């Protein structure tokens, strides 16, 4: 089975609130993690990445946190907008390339 997974299949948030999407991984040897966003009918799109020697990385409105102790990854989206509605995947890089988690569907309520 897959070594990367997400805690919730669906996350519903109010527009303007912050969103937190979680991911658990099992391969402690993974050295690189990526978050992808997939909008309906489109391919996954790179959002932000983090290497295993870091515990936090910030982008524009997004922050990724990595807790290697508990093998947990999270994506925080500030001031969620309607355009953030999508399925979000975490992925880890191991010996065989990228392994994707199952995805969390982020729903934005007006």
């Amino acid at each position, binding site marked *: 089975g*897959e070594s990367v997974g997400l805690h919730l299949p669906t996350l519903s948030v109010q527009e303007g609130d912050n969103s937190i999407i979680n991911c658990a991984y099992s391969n402690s040897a993974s050295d*690189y993690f*990526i978050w*992808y966003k*997939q909008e309906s*009918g*489109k*391919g*996954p*799109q*790179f959002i932000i*990445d983090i290497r295993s020697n870091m515990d936090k990385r910030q982008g524009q409105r997004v922050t990724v946190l990595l807790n290697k102790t508990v093998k947990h990854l999270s994506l925080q989206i500030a001031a969620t907008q309607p355009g953030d509605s999508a*399925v979000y*995947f975490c992925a880890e*890089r191991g010996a*065989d*390339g*990228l*392994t*994707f988690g*199952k*995805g969390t*569907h982020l729903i934005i309520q007006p």
Partner: protein
Amino acid sequence: DTAVSQTPKYLVTQMGNDKSIKCEQNLGHDTMYWYKQDSKKFLKIMFSYNNKELIINETVPNRFSPKSPDKAHLNLHINSLELGDSAVYFCASSPSYFYADTQYFGPGTRLTVL
């Protein structure tokens, strides 16, 4: 300009047929991939090619045969299509395999086998 393109976008066919999906990238990347995404949105890698050579072949039936005529193209040929092959297939590319951090995905090909 489309970085990674796939054709066709939709493919509907009967069981037992043979079909191909084409992929092209204009990013100058050395590595290309095929992924299968099932109805539950789970993305699973099928093949990886680096400089036209196969480097990963996951547990995929041998009815699936990738072909890379040059490093900008990676086509997927499927023989004797089965109902379970229905899925969305994504092509992706990255600068190289060993630095395979950011993968750029195509728009996907939705395959429906009747």
